[in-house]
């Protein structure tokens, strides 16, 4: 979705930012570094880290953006758990784009891959 939305916007995005391995801190996205820092702070559960990341994002953008960013993070905390707890496979493993991205980002080492790729 990130790659497609970037393409539609005429931008280039560094997908390795998703795994924390990006050289470009903002990943090619407006406020990208702050959004990534906020997402990581939410996941870290460290209250001071979270406060700093949230304040920095708010100062650079707006409180409304922070609310939305919190919502997106909360939403995807739910989605991964639905997928893994119910063992659903990826809908279209044959998609070339999806396959390339999974390879690029090294997602095949994730435990949940077993639900899409049967063990031998």
């Amino acid at each position: 979705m990130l790659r497609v939305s970037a393409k539609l916007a005429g931008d280039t995005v560094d997908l390795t930012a998703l795994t924390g391995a990006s050289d470009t801190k903002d990943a090619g996205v407006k406020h990208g570094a702050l959004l990534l820092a906020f997402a990581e702070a939410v996941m870290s559960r460290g209250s001071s880290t979270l406060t700093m990341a949230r304040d920095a994002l708010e100062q650079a953008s707006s409180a409304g953006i922070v609310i939305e960013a919190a919502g997106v993070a909360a939403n995807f905390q739910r989605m991964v758990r639905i997928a893994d707890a119910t063992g659903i496979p990826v809908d279209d493993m044959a998609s070339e784009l999806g396959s390339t991205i999974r390879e690029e980002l090294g997602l095949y080492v994730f435990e949940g891959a077993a639900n899409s790729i049967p063990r031998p």
Partner: protein
Amino acid sequence: MSNLNQALSERPDIQIALSNYFLFLAEPGYWWHGAQKVAIAAAARAASSCSLCAEKKAALSRNQIKALHAENDQLSPLTVDMIHQIITDQGRITESQVQALEQSGVSRLAYAELVGIVVCLFSIDEFCRALSQPLLELPQPQPGLASQRTPDNLETNTGFVPMIAREGLTEAVQDLWPEGFGANVIRALSAAPDLVRQWKQLAAVFYLPLEEMRNLTQSASRRLNRMQMELIAGRVSAINRCFY
């Protein structure tokens, strides 16, 4: 009032969705009555600070840690263990665990409903935590029995739980997903249709309504553009080791 609280007050849609979920949580469900649903939510809330979960998460194999979570008056230790794992170590949930739960008396239909209750509560709590807002108080359960209703056209060939076939929506559940939009993650909880409705309602306010997900540029109702949303989504998913 802080800027964040002001901004939050300008999103009544979020407040409504959260309130609706807590009203729903208190009511008898399909396989769990109201007190059990609230107990499931309480167990989900306790998982993040559970020391046994931290120990199990750190172990090379969860089976190395033989201790079980304490039972409570509504839920068995095995059920509490699964609820906690959905929160703290979801990537290592296997079908054999779901099978063991089934053998202990929690059917796969009941498990699907339990997953939905857990993940919706967790999502709401995470939103509150992200904004350093107090967690919302769990509701008082409403009396009544679980309905034991199941939707038509369930299939069992995808994942660990029964789910409505992609093209199997009947009139009673035709609102669950638009035609041609039955991705597995939407269908996953469809054995308990109200849980799909709840997660859709939460997704609509936290992220985007299902109908808008095909708009990959800028939603008129959001300040974040889609790239920014997907950057957050992707990073949270990667930290969670989400393959899906």
